[in-house]
């Protein structure tokens, strides 16, 4: 099984899974918060926030990667603070790859969750309030369970986007084998090398990518259907 892929290839696959998982996990609470704010609150600069969240969807990924580098690089405004205060370095590390993937996937996650929140009947939340639940409890016991399918859909979308993220990642954290060389970066690298062996390597990784994508999609379909069934009828 393990010799089906070379150690380098395995590392790329494992790294991609790790980066995508953390990109999804870390951005989820922020995604729920921002989606809730956009769906329910009226505040000054709402359109601005909405625009910034959606920017990575529209900008060329290279631009996003470059902006990340400028901001979170060792010499960047935030990057310097992170290093000085916490000793955290993001540039050219797998954590940086996760950040890039999270930023790129964020708009998709927010959109999915926001749609789910907008579909929740506020009258149910009023009913919970009259039964004695305060705002956080209303959210935890009524809103959150009702938007769970949306959160799952958003998480899967974010995971899929993170798996496929290439441009921003390679710009921000480069393409270091074992460190920042994700699945797409590895495929790209093999494709640059002439010869049948490299082509075969690329093809094997392409098949892995297709398999992971299909598995993620089917899992998401199954989970959201199971949750929706619990929530609606029966």
């Amino acid at each position, binding site marked *: 099984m393990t010799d089906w892929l070379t150690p380098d290839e395995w590392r790329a696959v494992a790294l991609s899974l790790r980066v995508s998982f953390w990109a999804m996990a870390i951005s989820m609470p922020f995604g729920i918060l921002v989606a809730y704010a956009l769906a329910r609150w009226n505040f000054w600069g709402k359109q601005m926030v909405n625009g910034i969240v959606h920017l990575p969807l529209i900008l060329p990924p290279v631009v996003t990667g470059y902006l990340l580098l400028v901001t979170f690089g060792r010499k960047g405004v935030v990057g310097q603070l992170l290093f000085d205060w916490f000793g955290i370095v993001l540039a050219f590390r797998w954590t940086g790859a996760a950040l890039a993937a999270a930023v790129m996937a964020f708009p998709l996650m927010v959109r999915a969750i926001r749609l789910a929140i907008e579909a929740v*009947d506020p009258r149910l939340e009023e009913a919970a309030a009259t039964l004695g639940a305060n705002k956080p409890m209303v959210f935890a016991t009524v809103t959150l369970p009702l938007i769970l399918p949306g959160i799952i859909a958003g998480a899967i979308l974010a995971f899929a986007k993170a798996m496929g993220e290439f441009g921003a990642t390679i710009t921000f954290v480069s393409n270091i084998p074992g460190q920042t060389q994700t699945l797409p970066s590895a495929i790209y690298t093999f494709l640059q090398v002439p010869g049948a062996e490299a082509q075969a390597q690329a093809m094997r990784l392409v098949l892995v990518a297709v398999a992971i994508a299909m598995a993620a999609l089917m899992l998401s379909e199954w989970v959201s259907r199971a949750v929706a069934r619990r*929530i609606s009828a029966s």
Partner: protein
Amino acid sequence: MTLSVVVTHRFGVFTLEAAFEAPPGVTALYGRSGSGKTSVVNAVAGLLRPDAGRIALNGEVLFDSSTGLCLPPNRRRIGYVFQDGRLFPHLTVRQNLTYGRHFAPRSSRQAAGTFDRIVGLLGIGALLDRRPGTLSGGEKARVAIGRAILSNPQILLMDEPLAALDEARKAEILPYLERLRDDLELPILYVSHAMSEVARLATTVVLMEAGRVVAAGPTAQVLADPATAPNLGLREAGALLTARVVGQDDDGLTRLDGPAGPLWLPRLDAPLGAVVRVRVLAQDVMLSLTRPEGFSALNMLPATVQDIRMGDGPGALLRLKVGDEILLARITRRSVDALRLVPGLAIFAVLKAVSVAQENVGGGG
């Protein structure tokens, strides 16, 4: 246990300006759609913040615009039964029922066995493990009532809890509500635009029109006031008689002991001795100067004319004293003239037994 409400609120061109007191028992907010009933209830619940006013429950101030106090809904200890039920779709019936229990103050937890008692009272024991999506309208309404009661509230707000139901379901649930009223020591604010519900359930009526309270008081008194009849709609006008069931006759009639002698009505499912209140519609009452002979109507009540109110159209509304109680009669002005009816005149009020619909007879209280 008294609720006192004084609120003013502007919605565009509509102004709500309501003030009333709700003593213990069932207080019905009655009026047409759009008269502001639901807004009043929402203000009591804390879902609507009025422009000005004061709302207090048992002396505890829930809202006071002069001090800027406005308790959020979750701190008002109210049980709200919404018109549309609003059961949580992701929870089972049992979880819906116990939802409010988690938030009730520890000191005021309901006694053990309350859950079983309420579930029994509402007849929803078989539904506990089902989800709201699979319930019928009547079942949903009963679960919503149970959920509100089990949150251990200090007052129950019911916003047309039966509006979404057909007549058969209403008839099924009204007895439950009567039992709640009589069994629980809980004031209930009951919104309705159905006079038959109000007449059956309410101890106090607050009559609303276009955002204002036009009449308020004990149900029998408000319903027997000819002055408020136009607000009820003339076809809905009718007074309440209290009567006691004294016999079930073989031919399908129930004999009652009324305020002025016997009263026969179509069969009532009530035990002997039960006190019921019967709503007699003004338009079903005929008047006669002498006791009619050879006449099909069964009920002939000796009465005295108290007041005659001529309408703008051909009709007149008369208030009659029957024993200690009041009856309204609507007849034509022509008949008033022909019979020379004047206040103080002794006459007979004639009522066909079959004209009293089952829905107009309710448990006493």
